[in-house]
């Protein structure tokens, strides 16, 4: 059929440049490193066994923690904004969404640099606070985990707002009206009605923020003062500095496994089947 002529080149391209390289990563994870950093082809589990060392579990744990904190903050900050947009007049919704997405489409480096400019000891924040007399000595904000989280939240907030908006927009207004009558406080209404209804959006948003945050390496590098090692830094370190490509590949594979596991879990959790338990 004519359709295959159209589909063919594209799918072939994706297959060749996406599937094949990732498979290569898998294959190399079983190889070994040469003395000066080349690849010695073999089939051995040394890399994976090495990764059992608590050091790597600790790095993964730290990365997960930072990514989780980022996700939660994005959720807390993004929810009101998404709700506001979802309830706004349809004409204004488009403009508001545009406003939210545009910063995202600008260069990530530039946005990270902006925070370096603001948070450093002689940066804007400290200068302002000193001038206003709020503090007497500059706060050391840059080169800390706090700065990294700020940078990550800033980078991925739009990723949270968009799915949340899509889900909230679909929430039936009549249900919300009914909830007003049934529940005394705004909080109860929010918690027991709106949030469960928006669950697919929340899960999607969390996923879209969590996964890239997990693999971040620029933000910890620039905003964290290279004081911490997240999974992304580790992969970059193994490939470009330690030149242990097989180990780097093994770490990448484990990361992929983790990411895919999370995606499957979130699809499962967001599916209609599991929502039956909540509906009452």
């Amino acid at each position, binding site marked *: 059929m004519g359709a295959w002529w159209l589909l063919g080149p594209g799918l072939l391209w994706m297959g060749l440049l996406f599937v094949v390289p990732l498979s290569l990563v898998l294959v190399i994870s079983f190889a070994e490193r040469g003395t000066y950093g080349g690849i010695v082809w073999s089939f051995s589990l040394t890399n994976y066994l090495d990764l059992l060392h608590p050091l790597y579990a600790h*790095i993964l744990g730290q990365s997960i923690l930072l990514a989780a904190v980022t996700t939660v903050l994005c959720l807390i900050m993004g929810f009101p904004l998404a709700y506001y947009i979802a309830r706004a007049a349809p004409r204004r919704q488009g403009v508001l969404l545009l406003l939210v997405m545009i910063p995202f489409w600008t260069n990530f480096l530039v946005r990270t640099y902006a925070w370096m400019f603001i948070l450093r000891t002689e940066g804007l924040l400290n200068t302002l606070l000193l001038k206003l007399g709020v503090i007497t000595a500059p706060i050391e904000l840059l080169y800390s985990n706090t700065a990294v989280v700020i940078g990550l939240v800033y980078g991925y907030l739009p990723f949270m707002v968009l799915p949340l908006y899509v889900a909230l927009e679909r929430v039936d207004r009549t249900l919300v009206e009914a909830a007003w009558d049934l529940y005394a406080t705004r909080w109860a209404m929010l918690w027991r009605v709106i949030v469960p209804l928006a669950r697919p959006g929340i899960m999607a948003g969390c996923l879209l923020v969590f996964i890239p945050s997990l693999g971040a390496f620029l933000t910890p590098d620039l905003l964290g003062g290279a004081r911490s090692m997240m999974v992304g830094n580790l992969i970059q370190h193994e490939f470009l*500095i330690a030149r242990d490509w097989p180990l780097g590949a093994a770490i990448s594979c484990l990361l992929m496994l983790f990411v895919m596991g999370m995606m499957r879990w979130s699809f499962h959790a967001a599916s209609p089947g599991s929502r039956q338990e909540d509906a009452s």
Partner: protein
Amino acid sequence: MCINGIRLSLCLLMLLFWGTVACQRTSGDAGQKTLHYFTWSDYVGPELLAEFERRHGVHVVVDTFSSNEELLAKLQGGATGYDVAVPSDFMAAIMIQQGLVAELDATMLPNAATLEDHLQHLPFDPTQRFAIPYLWGTVGIGYDSAVVSTTPDSWAVLWDARYTGKISMLNDQREVFGAVLRSMGASMNTRDPALIEAAKARLLVQKPLVKAYASEHYDQLLASGDVVLAHGWGGPVARAMLDRPSIRYVVPKEGGTLWADCLVVLKSSPRKELATQFINYLLEPQVAARTAERLLFASANKAARPFVPSRILDNPAIYPPLDLLPRLEWMTDVGAALRMYDRAWTELKMH
């Protein structure tokens, strides 16, 4: 119709982009040869290359890297097309051993005959036909004399709790471990696991005091007062001195790294003759002197000294006093022991 207006403006935009691109391409290449120069991000001085471009009618394209490991990784990764690269001494040794470096014709390098005495016939290239020293110096401590009251003379000052949060270390595993090992009285090229572990322990103790691990902008950190003690190469500290005159530089009494960045021609280069001429040009006494002045690093060419301004020549951060040499050590490759350093470095970063 609105859509036509949009299409028109898009076409104009496209034309504008293509025009700019075409302009850049023609001004850059127009039948000229290009020389690809792969060097450190702070070794770039366009005006220093202009003369060479003029003399030979070529365009020098500069790409940069920020660490020796990145250089090797890119080259091992099969990046061909670079002509001249600037690895540090121990990395040059690895590259020679790996067969990545072309042998040079000594007759085309008259300027290499007048290298500084201690830089001639280096152990990893005794015939001096593979790697030619270009710039050299030391690794030490840059400090703000207005804040650090007593003149530091030992690496131990970087562990001084009085300066918590105001210390920066290089983001370079060999250099950082090198400093600790020297402070413990050991060689920075040790392969002894016990010594490496001990060094790691000392670094873990230090970590809470360290503001950042920075290999590139510690001069800014010094100049802005973010840090008062910075582990670093002399050149950037000299740059910081320009912004904040109270900054000084010292090589601790336990000794430290003696480094020399070398010019090599890559074996995969299609323009080896031009590349060799480029190396000879960079070592020309006046060019070398201007380089020292501009980049704030000491030139490897002794013949450049008469042309270097005294404020550069007398600055110990730029031109190390030759009496320091006995306590300095060349960094060499540690072979398989690198894995131990890697693991220790990762552990340090992780905590």
